[in-house]
Structure formats: structure tokens, C-alpha cells
């Protein structure tokens, strides 16, 4: 391969990788959950912060709610109910790092939904919670 062409190809690949790994925004994540919710149900009519808040603060047949560790005020820091480890605030207004990495969001929903509900959350439930957290202002 022509060395210049090779260099160009490498640069393009590197740029593509960088873009692929680039931080997402809470809006991106909400959007991809919206598409997933539509695939889940043809009746999906958008997310609701109010539903998200109720979901976040309720227990779902088990010992813990989301608020057990994250507190009922997601603008404040939480604390793991078992280990007492501090947990940074969940609302993006209080913690700009929240909902900026799809893989991290999926990992924590997978674990925590299993702990709180004993099953995976639906895309609609995840979207409601994220919309609720995004609606909170300092």
C-alpha cells in the first residue's frame, strides 16, 4: 500500500474509533432507549418523569427501591445501604458524569434492576427514570 494512503487510512480508523468511544450525552442515551421502547411496544407514547419518579421511589416487591441507596433526592449523594460506600448524585444537574457512557448505564441497570425488581427493567422503565433524573434542577 502507498505509505501516504496507509497513513490516511490509519488516521481515519483512529478518528472513527475515537468518535465511537466518545462520551455520549444523557440525550443520546434517552434517544436510544426511546427507540428500544418502541420496539418493545407499539403503544409506547413517550417517557414520563412523573412515572420515573414513582418508579425510583417505590419498592417493587423486594427489600430495596432505587432510593434505598440513591436517596429520595437524586441531586444529593447517596450511600450503599449494605456497604455504606458513598454514591455520587444520580441527577446530571448535580453530576455531569451521569448517563454519558452507554455501557456503564446498561451495566448498572442490569445489576440494580435485578436487585430491586428481580428482573431486567424494560426500556420504558429505564427511560422514565432517566427522564425523571434529567428533569431535576439544582
Amino acid at each position, binding site marked *: 500500500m502507498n505509505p501516504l494512503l496507509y497513513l490516511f487510512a490509519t488516521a481515519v480508523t483512529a478518528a472513527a474509533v475515537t468518535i465511537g468511544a466518545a462520551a455520549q450525552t444523557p440525550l443520546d442515551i434517552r434517544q436510544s432507549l426511546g427507540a428500544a421502547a418502541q420496539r418493545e411496544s407499539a403503544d409506547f407514547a413517550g417517557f414520563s418523569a412523573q412515572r420515573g419518579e414513582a418508579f425510583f421511589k417505590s419498592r417493587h416487591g423486594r427489600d430495596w427501591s432505587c432510593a434505598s441507596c440513591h436517596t429520595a433526592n437524586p441531586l444529593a449523594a447517596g450511600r*450503599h445501604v*449494605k*456497604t*455504606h*460506600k458513598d454514591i455520587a448524585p444520580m441527577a446530571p444537574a448535580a453530576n455531569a458524569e451521569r448517563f454519558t457512557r452507554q455501557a456503564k448505564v446498561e*451495566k448498572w441497570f*442490569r445489576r440494580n434492576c*435485578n*436487585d430491586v425488581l428481580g428482573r431486567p427493567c424494560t426500556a420504558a422503565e429505564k427511560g422514565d427514570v432517566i427522564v425523571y433524573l434529567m428533569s431535576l434542577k439544582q
Partner: protein
Amino acid sequence: MHHASKLFIAASLVLGVVAAVFADDDDDDGRLYTASHPAWKTECGGCHVAYPPRLLPARSWRALMSDLDNHFGTDASLDPQAAADIGAFLERNAGRDRTPAAAPVLRITETPWFVREHDEVPARVWQSAKVASRSNCAACHVTADQGSYGEGSLFIPK
């Protein structure tokens, strides 16, 4: 006695003392645990202090890492690559197996070492709201997140 034999005995004594010192180094006070790994720190440290690999033997870590979906009652599952990386790090830096005949110990707090090191801690400290759980190292070992568990950085909460 032959000069060479004397030298041999002297050398053996020195080596013996050195070996004795190192054999017991699990019990040192003022221990600083330096083994670190980025994924271990982030993933294990996401929910609790990233416990030093040395505090459990390799087969305990293997058992723990193979059942992360049910990690002391919570789902701590990882993607397979992260689990493999962290597992290898833990096993590489694991401590000695002191109960090889028994089932692997899964809780650091149940190892003979932990029990012995904490036998002077009164019940009221364990029950204090600030401690809450024996897994909460940082309640007293305030620099635990840096791997430093020495008595110099030990503050018992009131």
C-alpha cells in the same frame, strides 16, 4: 568444626530468620497493599473498598468471581472480559491458602487473619451506625481506598 560448616550454619540461621520474618508478613500492622489494577479499582471499588487481593487465597477469588450475579445477595455481574482481567489480577496477587482442606472462604471477615487482627474491637464499634458492616473497612481505616490499613491511619468512629 570445619570453617565451611560454621559458615553454612551461620548462613542457614540468617536465612531461617529472614524466612520467619517473611512467612509471617500477612500479620504485619501498618500494612500497605500496593497491588493495583485499573478495572479492579473501578469495578470492585464501585460498591465497596476494592479489597486487597492478598486478603484471600486464589481459590476464594476464583469462587467469588465465578458467581458475581449473586454476590452476597446483590448482582455485581461484569462483562466477561472485565471479569477475566480482574480475576487474573486477584489470583496473581492472592494470599496464601491457610485452610486448604476446607471449602474456600468467601468473606474476608471470616478469615482467621481478619478475626485475629480485629479481636480487640469492641462490639459497640461493630454495631455503631457509622460502621454498619464489617465490609466497611473505610469506617475506621480512613485511607483504605489507597491500600493503606496501618494503625497510623486508624480512627474508630464515636
